[in-house]
């Protein structure tokens, strides 16, 4: 091996590119397989509902808190800025648009990734290192269908519902802060109806479904291909959260550019 620094740098970059392409390929194959298996019988309805409970119901409290305080703090900032231009009447629509288009879907996805995506990665990687996934294989039970498909489906279904809750709670949080700051309550609400269109809400919910797919598929991929023992579990969990966060933010940019 050459000791030339340039050669070393090129080799290093090459390894990173090859590794990225390898992982992206594996990730894509696993995700496509999980989605294809979702439409093939037998359907594991009970597993899907169990995962929906874990992803949705168990995340509700943290999503409500996130939505409430995001709406509240965003309103505080908007009031401060809009008062300079005597545009307080636009506070409601601005808060509602921001919540439905961006803050609701993105912050919900980030919170659920931290709570559920990491748990998926940790659970699957623990199953991997203790040979439970091998055990499923030997029993002729496809681990992708049994473990990954229900998680991805549950996240795709539950993220839009959680986002809808976050949107509503965020607007309520904003409304309460606006009233506290002396804004006219009627104006806050009526201008929302005038300016926010249903497409804002729909597109936000579509984004949320895509984020659900990303957080679950990344978490499952990282867990499913864990190597090593307890250290591997830790690495997988960390990577799952970091990669899902980045993928969600990049995906948000791409979808926003396409939708709005």
């Amino acid at each position, binding site marked *: 091996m050459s000791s030339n620094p340039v050669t070393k740098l090129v080799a290093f970059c090459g390894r990173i590119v090859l590794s990225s392409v390898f992982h992206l390929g594996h990730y894509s194959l696993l995700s496509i397989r999980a989605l294809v298996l979702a439409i093939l019988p037998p359907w594991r309805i009970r597993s899907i509902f169990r995962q929906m409970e874990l992803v949705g119901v168990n995340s509700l409290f943290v999503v409500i808190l996130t939505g409430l305080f995001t709406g509240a703090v965003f309103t505080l900032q908007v009031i401060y800025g809009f008062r300079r231009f005597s545009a307080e009447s636009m506070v409601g629509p601005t808060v509602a648009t921001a919540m439905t288009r961006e803050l609701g879907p993105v912050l919900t996805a980030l919170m659920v990734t931290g709570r559920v995506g990491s748990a998926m990665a940790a659970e699957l990687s623990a*199953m991997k290192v203790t*040979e439970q996934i*091998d*055990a499923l294989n*030997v029993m*002729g039970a496809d681990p992708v269908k049994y473990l990954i498909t229900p998680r991805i489906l549950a996240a795709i279904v539950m993220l839009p519902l959680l986002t809808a809750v976050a949107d509503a709670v965020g607007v309520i949080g904003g409304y309460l802060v606006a009233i506290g700051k002396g804004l006219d309550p009627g104006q806050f609400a009526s201008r929302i109806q005038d300016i926010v269109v249903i497409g804002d809400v729909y597109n936000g919910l579509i984004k949320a479904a895509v984020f659900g797919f990303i957080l679950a598929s990344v978490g499952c991929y990282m867990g499913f291909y864990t190597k090593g023992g307890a250290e591997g579990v830790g690495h997988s969990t960390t990577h799952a959260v970091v990669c899902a966060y980045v993928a969600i933010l990049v995906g948000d940019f791409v979808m926003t550019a396409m939708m709005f």
Partner: protein
Amino acid sequence: MGAPTIMIRDLRKKFGDQEVLKGVTFDILAGKINFLIGRSGEGKTVALKHLTGLMTADSGEIWFDDLEINQATRSQLDHLRLKMGLLFQDGALFDSLSVGENVAFPLWFHRKAKPKIAQAKADKLLAELGLEGSASRRVVSLSTGERKRVALARALIMDPEILFFDEPTTGLDPLLSAQVDELIGQIQKNTGATVVVISHDIAATLTLADQVSMIHDGRIIASSTPAALRANEEPNVRMFLAGENA
């Protein structure tokens, strides 16, 4: 249909630069107890993972009757696996399920029996293995010996034609080890299944086995009856049987 004969031919596997299997060739006798022995780190478990389709060989062939598993489709492999039972070294029980659910899982997953019938069969197997009334216990509450027996019950519930045991007595006290060895013998006698045991327990090997294959440095260096193995003059076989480091 009887248990299939398994033939392994020139199996090779590398992990990075390290070649673990360097052309493993041996036969597994149908309806008999076959031991694959060797020192730790010689590739016994890797060979077992190839036999069960959990790993794919770099080259070589594994034939289950007329099916070569490296060339098998996923559905062919799944179909073959319905005939297999594998007892993992540490049990590989599902933490999220109770003991009874673990044992009944294969029946439930493949919808081979209604839940009540599957659970009744699981209870019966657990009772036969000395774990009566344990069906509702959580896996985390089990001792090492109990985990092995639960895993064994799970491996047996589909009435497999081929049973694999990966170091079944590792981590057990001598009394439990003897019980597990006795169980392996009984199970083979009662079911007529092909049994493959990965082990470095010399006493159990010489007592239980119908055929013994010894792996050393990634190759099979002996494959014979226990009596013939005892008479084998190969230095590594002699050292292993004498309990010395090769």
